[in-house]
């Protein structure tokens, strides 16, 4: 076993250890055992960082891959199918090692932060236990090399998110939110499981490598439509977990959980799982499936952005911005900008974690005030939080010099390239929605910064009866009395070091130089070089497919090996076959090695559109920022009057496009009506049948009892009578006297003796 595998198993099991220790012993440990969670996650991060360093920095090989598996369940040879076995395994490549480091780092920082934020909660120890199992589940998804174990950990993520979202389960809203999250995820997971089954029915394996090898060898027995369906069904899992339209409704409600948990869910663990999973199955997605994914991503990005601009709850704005950014990632994957999407996943994880932890710091400092309308002027009181929050906001908005700019720009460039290649008018909708969302992002984040940090403190303006209005997510927590304290602002102060340090670290990771030396081009950074777009194994309408892939023993390996050199400076020549000539661009010295011309064209067009994207997106971002400035800083446009002027649109956004109401009217009411019909059916028909059967049985029992009383009992009584009589006779022999027994015994012996002797004589 490779040492990386061993280390990764240790990393995987450490959070589980934390969970086991804390769930059972937290009351026996000092400080309710929080140091156990923090220490274990710190260790896990240290080991993950070692793996990251050795894999990404030292090996510096895009095709790096270490895998290990073992047979978990051997079903033997099944008649009609052949040998069946379920394998479990671990794969470590660049993506895995990056995700490993990211997840453990953010989880560690969240643990550390929570020691301050959750201090005094009555379930403090259990909270850390849940964080541990959440991290464990996510690491399991990241390390899995097959669909089956991914599915197992996928459900574990669902379970742990359920536990954490409903952590303040005494509150009705939290309990509802956790159910909503769980059910929405179930819907997605059913699709995902069906997708897994389609693939399993064809290849009898869950392993990614084997599935891709079989696909590339053209062994998929069904039509291409089924393959598309399998891809879309698998993507449904991502729709649920990563809160894509139309299953996004759970994520904003999940804000009922503790704020550090929101950071963990939105940055590292849960929503990242969906995008990561789509990346894992990326090479088996057909162009049709990719189109669906791209459109869903674009819709999600745009819709969430429009909702975010009118929300007042500081966490809800961030929640919708997460949905919007996840839409970007899914859009990126859909348009084939694979590296860019994963790049955005990582950069987003850091700055979004920073934003959530920052909002947690604000909520903590303002004694559980979540409504931005009653904040303001916090920049002087909380300089550290202000600085880090602003930096992360710039990254989220996508301003140059930040990490968010690099990744978002790469996605948008890919979208333009995609639209150019596909050529259809409808496909231009995707980049247009993307750019528009970028503008909205800049606008609502500018609004948030302004409302929270600048101007006068407006806490005293808060209506007295307003704190039961959805803004008391933490009223049940900590035993503080929010009702009295928010009237005065003298209670607001900077958070302690253990909450400040994660903010600083995460803010630092939101700067461009961590990822790329060029503040304008992420493709020149290590990340996009290490995560090249893999070649698809389903390249439909590719005349060269057979020739190209037939000659390679393990096509899935080839898929990784057949990498691209994104921009000119990369000197390392890619191993693999020479692909399509479509990509010979003047300024590129590298060799394009795509077996699939469509993919190659998209990548190439994406590079070509790079500067276009920069110009447009910068313009849009600046537009958004200036709009925010105009509205909220200079007051040239009064937001309230504008809202009145476009009241239908405003309400449409404020009420989140009425998705909850639509679902309530359709699915929930529909389920209820269906349940009523079933109840009627149950009472009148099923019960009727049951009662009829019962009547019959009673009649039969009546007959039976007659037979029993007369025939069976008669026989039994007769037997008893016989035994009784015999006993009465034999009883005379039982005198109870020892000596008569001896006499009888000796008589018997003597009789035998006589018998024996007479026989001997004869």
């Amino acid at each position, binding site marked *: 076993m490779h040492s990386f595998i061993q280390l990764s198993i240790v990393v995987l099991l450490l959070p589980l250890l934390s969970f086991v220790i804390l769930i059972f012993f937290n009351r026996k440990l000092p400080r309710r055992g929080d140091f156990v969670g923090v220490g274990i996650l710190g260790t896990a991060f240290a080991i993950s960082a070692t793996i990251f360093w050795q894999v990404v920095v030292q090996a510096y090989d895009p095709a790096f891959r270490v895998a290990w598996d073992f047979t978990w369940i051997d079903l033997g040879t099944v008649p009609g199918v052949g040998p069946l076995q379920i394998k479990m395994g671990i794969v470590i490549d660049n993506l895995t090692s990056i995700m490993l480091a990211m997840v453990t780092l953010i989880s560690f920082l969240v643990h550390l932060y929570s020691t301050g934020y959750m201090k005094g909660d009555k379930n403090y120890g259990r909270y850390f236990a849940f964080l541990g199992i959440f991290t464990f589940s996510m690491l399991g998804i990241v390390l899995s090399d097959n669909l089956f174990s991914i599915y197992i950990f996928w459900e574990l993520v669902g379970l742990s998110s359920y536990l954490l979202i409903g952590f303040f389960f005494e509150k009705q809203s939290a309990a509802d939110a956790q159910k909503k999250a769980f059910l929405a995820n179930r819907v997605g997971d059913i699709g995902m499981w069906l997708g897994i089954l389609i693939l399993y029915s064809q290849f009898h394996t869950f392993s990614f490598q084997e599935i891709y090898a079989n696909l590339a060898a053209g062994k998929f027995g069904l039509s291409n439509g089924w393959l598309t369906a399998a891809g879309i069904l698998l993507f449904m899992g991502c729709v649920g977990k990563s809160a894509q339209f139309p299953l996004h409704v759970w994520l904003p409600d999940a804000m009922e959980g503790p704020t550090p948990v929101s950071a963990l869910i939105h940055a590292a663990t849960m929503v990242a799982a969906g995008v990561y999973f789509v990346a894992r199955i990326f090479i088996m997605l057909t162009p049709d499936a990719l189109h669906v994914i791209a459109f869903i991503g674009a819709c999600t990005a745009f819709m969430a952005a429009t909702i975010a601009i009118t929300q007042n709850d500081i966490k809800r704005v961030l929640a919708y911005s997460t949905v919007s950014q996840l839409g970007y990632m899914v859009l990126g994957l859909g348009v084939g900008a694979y590296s860019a999407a994963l790049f955005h996943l990582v950069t987003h994880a850091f700055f979004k974690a920073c934003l959530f932890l920052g909002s947690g710091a604000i909520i903590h400092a303002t004694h559980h005030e979540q409504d931005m309308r009653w904040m303001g002027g916090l920049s002087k009181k909380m300089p550290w939080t202000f600085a880090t929050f602003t930096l992360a906001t710039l990254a989220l908005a996508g301003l140059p010099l930040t990490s968010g700019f690099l990744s978002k720009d790469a996605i948008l460039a890919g979208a333009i390239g995609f639209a150019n290649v596909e050529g259809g008018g409808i496909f231009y909708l995707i980049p247009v929605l993307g750019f528009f969302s970028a503008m909205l992002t800049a606008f609502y984040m500018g609004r948030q910064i302004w409302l929270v940090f600048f101007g006068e403190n407006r806490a005293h303006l808060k209506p007295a009866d307003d704190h039961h209005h959805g803004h008391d997510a933490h009223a049940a927590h900590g035993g503080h009395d929010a009702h009295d304290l928010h009237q005065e602002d003298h209670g607001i102060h900077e958070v302690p070091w253990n909450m400040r340090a994660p903010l600083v670290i995460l803010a630092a990771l939101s700067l461009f130089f961590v990822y790329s030396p060029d503040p304008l081009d992420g493709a020149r950074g290590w990340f996009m070089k290490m995560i090249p777009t893999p070649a698809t194994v389903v390249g439909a309408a590719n005349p060269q497919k057979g020739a190209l892939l037939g000659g390679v023993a393990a096509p899935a390996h080839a898929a990784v090996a057949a990498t691209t050199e994104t921009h000119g400076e990369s000197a390392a020549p890619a191993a693999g076959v020479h692909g399509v000539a479509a990509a010979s661009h003047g300024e590129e010295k590298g060799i394009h090695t795509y077996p699939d011309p469509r993919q190659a064209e998209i990548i190439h067009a994406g590079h070509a559109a790079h500067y276009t994207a920069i110009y447009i997106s910068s313009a849009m971002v600046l537009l958004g920022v200036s709009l925010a400035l105009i509205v909220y800083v200079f007051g040239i446009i009064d937001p309230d009057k504008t809202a009145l002027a476009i009241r239908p649109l405003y309400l449409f956004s404020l009420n989140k496009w009425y998705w909850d109401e639509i679902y309530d009217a359709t699915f929930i009411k529909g389920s209820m009506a269906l349940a009523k019909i079933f109840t009627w059916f149950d009472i009148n028909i099923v019960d009727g049948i049951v009662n009829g059967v019962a009547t019959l049985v009673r009649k039969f029992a009546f007959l039976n009892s007659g037979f029993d009383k007369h025939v069976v009992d008669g026989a039994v009584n007769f037997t008893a009578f016989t035994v009784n009589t015999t006993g009465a006779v034999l009883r005379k022999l*039982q005198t*109870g*006297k020892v*000596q008569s027994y*001896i*006499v009888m015994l*000796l008589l018997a012996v003597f009789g035998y003796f006589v018998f024996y002797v007479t026989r001997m004589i004869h």
Partner: protein
Amino acid sequence: MDQLTTIGLNHYLTISALLLGFGLFAVMTRKNAIVVLMGVELILNAANINFLAFSKFNGGMQGVMFALFVIVIAAAGAAIALAIIINIYKIFKSVDVSSIDSLKE
């Protein structure tokens, strides 16, 4: 006459048989539990004589050893039996074995 003057195995066996017979008779007929116990001891002695006689005329030690163990076990048995008899006496105020027939019902 020679048979009578040369002491052989049969002489011992005859004594043994007579002791056994008397022992059995005591066990069967006497009502006093103590005398029954004496009968048992007679039977055991008869057996011991048999063991030792066969051992003597066979030249081995098996019979001797067996007789030794029989004596030990007889002692243990006598102790237990007497304890039981005393208990019976305490309960029934009698050692008449024919009146102790509560096993009957």
